[in-house]
């Protein structure tokens, strides 16, 4: 995220709350993530005037309404692409996208690789509840086959995806995972993600007690384990290893919580600036010089 927007204000987490009260069900994990987000923004002193949060459609995609900032509530699956435009057009802004597993990995799945490998300087928080919440409970790409839902009354026929491995493969330069039941860890990882220069991705497990009756808060609590102390997040190979679900050993069937991978790399903006510099680009470049190239 743009450093220009950091350490700009002193605001408590509460100060980032907008007037709109969250419209989520009682017990929804999204509350925990939202609280983590408030705290992270506060700790970093992010200036709301220079913060743009985009979202798609879904329960999670309602999040921007609850945060005091500039924000766009866009279309299902397109929030990341929209944020890409915002970030490139004005690199001084702090840009963030929030949304669900369906939004990001199903309909939006075609945009993810490109934000990551272009290293767009933004933060993507994915609220992963293994279900389509807003449309009242259908299978998502992270649903477990056990889940019976609207379109899968007889169970799910497909392998759930692995968000961490996806984003590592896509070459995201910051990859972390948290769980909504641990808002402090959420806050910490979101904070580091925001502070990271480049594309940062944080997958956050979040229970949907209304429609996903198998991935309960307790299920997630048991699912996650803290990233081992000796994990070197600058080691891509180790990160990939960590991200793959183990079949045996002490972490069999479990998933890591914490910072998985981080790497400094030029952002797309950096490279664009290079091109501009190379051609001596400036807003008042003489247009006639361009026009003259078309003389016969």
């Amino acid at each position, binding site marked *: 995220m743009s450093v220009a927007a950091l350490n700009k204000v002193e605001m408590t987490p509460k100060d980032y709350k907008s007037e*709109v009260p969250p419209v989520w069900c009682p017990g929804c994990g999204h509350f925990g993530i939202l609280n983590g987000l408030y705290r992270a923004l506060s700790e970093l002193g992010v200036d*709301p*005037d*220079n*913060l*743009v949060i*985009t979202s798609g459609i879904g329960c999670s995609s309602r999040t*921007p*309404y609850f945060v*005091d*900032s*500039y*924000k*766009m*509530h*866009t*279309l299902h699956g*397109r929030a990341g*692409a*929209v*944020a*890409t*435009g*915002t*970030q*490139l*057009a*004005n690199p*001084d*802004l702090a840009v963030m996208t929030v949304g669900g597993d369906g939004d990001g990995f199903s309909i939006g799945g*075609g*945009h993810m*690789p*490109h934000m990551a490998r*272009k290293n767009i300087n933004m933060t993507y928080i994915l609220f992963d509840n293994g279900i389509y919440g807003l449309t009242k409970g259908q299978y998502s790409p992270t649903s477990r086959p056990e889940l019976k839902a609207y379109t899968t009354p007889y169970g799910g026929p497909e392998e759930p995806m692995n968000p961490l491995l996806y984003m590592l493969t896509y070459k995201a330069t910051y990859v972390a995972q948290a769980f909504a039941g641990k808002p402090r860890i959420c806050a910490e990882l979101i904070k580091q993600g925001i502070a990271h220069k480049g594309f940062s991705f944080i997958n956050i497990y979040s229970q949907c007690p209304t429609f996903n009756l198998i991935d309960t808060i307790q299920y997630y609590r048991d699912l996650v384990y803290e990233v081992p102390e000796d994990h070197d997040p600058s080691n891509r190979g180790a990160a990939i290893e960590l991200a793959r679900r183990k079949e045996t050993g002490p972490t069999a069937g479990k998933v890591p919580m914490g910072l998985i991978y981080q790497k400094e790399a030029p952002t*797309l903006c950096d490279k*664009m600036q290079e*091109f*501009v510099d*190379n*051609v*001596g*680009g*400036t*807003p008042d*470049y003489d*247009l*006639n*010089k*361009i*026009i*003259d190239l*078309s*003389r*016969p």
Partner: protein
Amino acid sequence: MARNDLIIRVAGEGGEGIVSSGDFIAAACARVGLEVYTFKTFPAEIKGGYCLYQIRTSSEQVYNQGDTFDVFCAFNGEAFELNKHLMTPGTAVVYDYPGGDFEPDLPEGVIGYPIPMSQTAKDLKSYRSKNMVALGALSVLFNIEEETLIRVLTDKFARKGDKILNLNLEAFAKGKELGAAHEKTDPYRVADPQGAKDVIIIDGNSAVGLGAIIGGLDFFSAYPITPATEVAKYVAKHLPKRGGTLIQAEDEIASIAQVLGASYAGKKAMTATSGPGLALMSEMLGMFTMSETPGLVVDVQRGGPSTGLPTKHEQSDLFLAIMGAHGDSPRIVLSVEDVKDCVDMTVEGLNIAEEYQCPVIILSDGSLAFSTQTFPTPDPSSFEIVNRKRWDGEGEYKRYEMTDDLISPMADPGTKGGLHVSTGLEHGETGAPKYTPENHELQAKKRFDKIKPIVDRYRPVEIQGEGDADVGIITWGSTIGVVREAVQRLRAEGLKVKGFYPKLMWPMPVEQYEAFAATCGKILVPEVNYQGQLSHFIRSETNIKSSIPYTICGGLPFTPAMIVERTKEILS
């Protein structure tokens, strides 16, 4: 009508240098102060296939590609065969013989100039300079100013090194010699050099790019598609000079989404595509409408439906441009007449998007995309540049405030106190979701009413000819250039014919259509699509009863002669 213009058509297999030889002729003519209008067709296949380049040049302004060629240059047998039916007694034909792949059977009265192009290139051990041989012959036979042509070649090939330059010049000289050996029996010659004029020559796609840069573009998101790709090519090269950014997105949906995001950031943003891409953008264009965000899409139309005829000309995306959205979703749709217009209307498109905070679609087409045309060098300082109405920082900010002109001030992110949400949900003044019946009715009305004044901006619509007419011709896009000449010819014959040339396709300036029609006996509406898409809207929006659609959809533009003929049919 008096013609001092000449039409040369060069055709052959893709990859034989057809396009570059055409470009050279066009450039040489433009350099000596002649007007130029070129026309090309390519195959949809990457390599090989039939390829055509036609140069029309005159000392006076030319509005279209013309009726047919005076001079034809055949690089191979296929090209000859495909064009044979267009040759009439007197047509001059330069062709690859002997040593080419054919021995033409010239139609009666056609004047042939056999030139062993392939053989000569082979003899020079420079197969790729076949086109230079042809060029040399054409130059001497049809009065293409040799010195200038050589300078054009030199400018072009200099970058490639002396060896290549000399080889090409040699082939050119050889061709000239071969041409000069013929006795010229046809009357065709390029008009004599005029004083050099202050013009540029550029193709339609590049002109869109130029317009974008003049118009103050900050951000362009590209996804390649024929025949629109060169818009991005031009912008990619020149936008960084102004400090702007072009990104190639993963698909058209990402492109238009990025345009939304960039525009929300307070920047001028656009993309260019063709029909299939515009179709993919349908959903997101609705978001521009609902969130009242400025955004520009240039649709360089091609033959449809579906993948259709990707390299061919058609004007068949009007329905999609105007009505391709779910819900009641107003847009502004503009069209362009010629290459100069590509510059002007792109500036205009950016301006209008800013002014009305809505999606704007400009319809160009496959024939303009690749057509190079001469026109006066644009003066960038002469263009009016419009920026969006921005919040003045007074009071409490409401993104969708109801104002007198229904345009709500925008607050770019970064503006103190301007925090708000931009949303695709129905909303009240602050942007918060609001689904009451009254509010939805009110906001829908706002979205439609706020763009209504655009019609005044395009008042009056240009009319060619004055007084009453027996036939009034209404048309749009690049067909306008064809109709202009047809109307000139018809009026020159003393026939009472007028033309009506809207650039604003939607919302329709109904009153002006009706006023025009009131002065005409019959209304003819030529357009290059199957359904008569403009005719449809004339029926639905205006009180014009008797408009007569004239549609063709063969992948080619109209010719003036076709319009003249049809008009006369109607008159009789």
